[in-house]
């Protein structure tokens, strides 16, 4: 009997997918018009984009880079016969250096630029530890002392002597540890640099400078301004607050009740009040809290308050890092017989800090953005400078160009930092999902 069932014995050639599923059309169908609801959304979105661009682009397109005043801009725009006006970029041409560097002397501006470049080089081995050799960490260490010197100037001896402080402490520790025991020598090793900095560095530096004058011109912090000021406040505050933050985080995790409550109290207090109130403390009260006669300048006071502010947030980030470490790491450190500080230094903190880097970067972004608040207490950061620029009779009445320029600067820097932090987060995420 003949088998009537039909079995295909050869494969049919693969056919192209329907035209509506591939190429541009397919993509459009998939991503924009996959149903009536999506289609409506797409149309609304397109209309929205058109409206926004139609409003902004004609305004942005305005050949006023050479204008010397707002009225000159208005003339140029009137000549072009633009209906809705246009941007006046002359103010950016004239003032962009001021917006970037504040009143930093023009011939010395290579110093903040060098510091800024150095900052990247110093951070590279920390942030991209796979690409850059660990030896570069030596530069990072040296940069901590060089950066303030580059920014503020003064004799080269000051940063060298300041760097000598920890070295002295280390020598003292090595020498004393066998004589008076571990804890006592740690305390001495911490006290020596502090006392050295407070009482000896100043006179010593002056004395050496008297014999071998070697240094660069002093630039006082009141000349700091513009974008440089924001960056510098942010960098200094984060750098110092890393140390304070680690101490506070350890304090908060500590078994010692009083230490714990002091840390918790400090962290919660700082996190519970707005930064602007802390800046008011810096501008109106900090001098009252200090011994009669001391007088920090306002930028230094702002840096102190910003540091305290950042340290509370950094402490919480690091606490998160500490909590994220597997319990086994603590137990393994205990099993090896390491004491508390050794365990922290060799096992816990290196790992906890590493996984905290994304959090630290976002804290930095937040702080960096918040430095704009210093304009409210009269410092000339970019936003503060807009007020001064608009007080110039030539630029009285200008708004969007300045704010737009500042917003663009902030956007570029914050966006790239947040991208880095996301990349790192992805890299650190070791669980597979």
């Amino acid at each position, binding site marked *: 009997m003949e088998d009537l069932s039909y079995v295909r014995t050869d494969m049919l050639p693969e056919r192209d997918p329907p035209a509506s599923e591939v190429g541009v059309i397919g993509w459009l169908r998939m*991503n*924009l018009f*996959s149903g009536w609801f*999506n289609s409506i*959304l*797409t149309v609304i*979105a*397109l209309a*929205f*984009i058109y409206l926004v661009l139609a409003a902004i682009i004609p305004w942005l397109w305005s050949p006023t880079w050479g204008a010397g005043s707002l009225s000159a801009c208005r003339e140029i725009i009137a000549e072009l016969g633009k209906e809705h006006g246009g941007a006046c970029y002359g103010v950016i041409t004239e003032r962009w250096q001021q917006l970037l560097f504040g009143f930093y002397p023009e011939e010395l501006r290579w110093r903040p630029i060098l510091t800024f470049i150095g900052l990247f080089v110093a951070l590279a081995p920390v942030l991209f530890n796979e690409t850059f050799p660990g030896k570069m960490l030596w530069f990072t260490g040296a940069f901590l002392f060089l950066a303030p010197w580059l920014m503020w100037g003064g004799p080269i001896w000051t940063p060298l002597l300041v760097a000598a402080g920890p070295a002295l402490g280390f020598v003292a520790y090595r020498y004393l540890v066998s004589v008076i*025991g571990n*804890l*006592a020598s740690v305390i001495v090793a911490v006290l020596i640099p502090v006392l050295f900095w407070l009482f000896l560095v100043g006179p010593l530096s002056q004395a050496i400078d008297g014999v071998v004058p070697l240094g660069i011109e002093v630039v006082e912090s009141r000349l700091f301004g513009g974008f440089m000021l924001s960056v510098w406040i942010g960098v200094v505050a984060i750098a110092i607050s890393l140390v304070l933050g680690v101490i506070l985080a350890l304090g908060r995790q500590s*078994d*010692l*009740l*009083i*230490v714990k409550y*002091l840390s918790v109290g400090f962290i*919660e*207090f700082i*996190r*519970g*009040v*707005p*930064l*602007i*109130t802390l800046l*008011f*403390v810096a501008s*109106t*009260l900090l*001098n*009252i*809290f*200090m*011994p*009669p006669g001391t007088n920090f300048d306002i930028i230094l006071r702002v840096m102190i308050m910003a540091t305290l502010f950042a340290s509370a947030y950094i402490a919480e980030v690091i606490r998160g890092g500490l909590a994220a470490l597997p319990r086994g790491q603590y137990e393994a450190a205990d099993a090896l*017989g390491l*004491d508390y500080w050794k365990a922290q230094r060799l096992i816990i903190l290196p790992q906890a800090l590493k996984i905290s880097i994304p959090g630290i970067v976002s804290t930095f*972004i937040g702080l960096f*953005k*918040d430095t*704009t*608040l210093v*304009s*409210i207490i009269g410092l000339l950061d970019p*936003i503060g400078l807009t007020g001064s620029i608009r007080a110039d009779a030539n630029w009285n009445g200008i*708004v*969007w160009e300045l*704010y737009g320029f*500042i*917003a663009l600067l*902030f*956007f570029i820097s*914050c*966006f790239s930092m*947040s991208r880095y932090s996301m990349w790192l987060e992805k890299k650190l995420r070791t669980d597979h*999902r």
Partner: protein
Amino acid sequence: MTTATDPEGGTFRPSMLIYDSRYRSATIQIVALIGFLLLIGWLVSNTVQNLADLGKSVGFGFLTEPAGYDINQRLLDYDSRDSHARASLMGLLNTLLVAVLGCIMATIVGVIVGVLRLSNNWLVARIMTVYVEMFRNVPVLLWIVFSMAILIETLPAPSAFRGDEPSASMLLGDSVALTNRGVYVPEPLFGRMDEEGHPLTWRQGLGDIHLFGEAWFRFDVSLELVVFLSTLIAGILVSRLIGQRADRIQNSTGVRPKTFWLRAAVIVVPSVIVLWLMGFYLGKPALRGFNFDGGTHLRNSFIALWLALSLYTAAFIAEIVRGGILAISKGQTEAAAALGIRPRRIMSLVILPQAMRVIIPPLISQYLNLTKNSSLAIAVGYMDLTGTLMGITLNQTGRELEAVMMTMLIYLAISLAISGAMNVYNNRVKLKER
């Protein structure tokens, strides 16, 4: 580690304070405490000495002096002869107002944006990404100033509504006016008048009660509002009872009686009757003199601050929401789909409730941030706590120490209250693990 070698009992030697682990922690703590107290003492003594040098004294007497300045946006009655304490109270209420409304708006926008960022509509998802990145990476102070400038520059001035052929017109049947001085919306009023201006005899408002006489914390309670709210609450309670009864019937007979209209009527009808009896009507704003008159005036400064704060915070909330949704494993979506639930309901019934547990803790800190950022009101002239107590009051009385400290403590109290309340909520929705 040292316990094994610790001598049992024995005489106490001072060196044991450091080397004996039984005493060491106590020693460290006491040293820390002494150090802390010394620090505080040092600060206080510096302050006392500095103030003495400046010839100033610390005192809160200034709070009872007349403030002397006016506040435009205020929730309670106030004039320039009232005390600094009352002016600060106005500021505090304004802070709370913008914080609460900001949190609500930020949550709504944030959730919508967060969900739309995961939309399969490419264009919409991209627009939302642009929105999130734009707002997250530019300082909030700039956004506040920006939104103020946009409101001022793009909306028409009240004069544009005037004349025979006005260039701007009111919305929604002449009841809402968008101007660059703010938005005027109808205001609920009671005790409607007849055409000659006499109150209707049997539909009268009840008036207000003044509490606390002339004290700085005095306030008025609108009796109409009390009556209306109690009617509404009573209606809701009755409606609940009906619902419970329906549940019982369903449990015993298996058939649920239709109660929707009944329940709605129980809530709506008595409230409407009460409103009608009290002569409820909407007071519409109308152009009079230089400005619109009547209605509720939401100042530009308030709207700009509110919009900027909530849109800025919404960008962060959107990321939190997105992260929360992505944290729910794909199996949940697939299981729900296998049960035949439609995609939109999967989101609202399966994904979001689970995501909430991931979302809530970071959400709390965003609420805190918004509340703290509301102190930037000063940049647009919204008279919040920093604008009154730490602003004009500080400036007119020269009491920096008192004003700044009080402001900090009040903000601290608000922050602690928010995080406390949210923690209670968080504990309630937390997955109970056994």
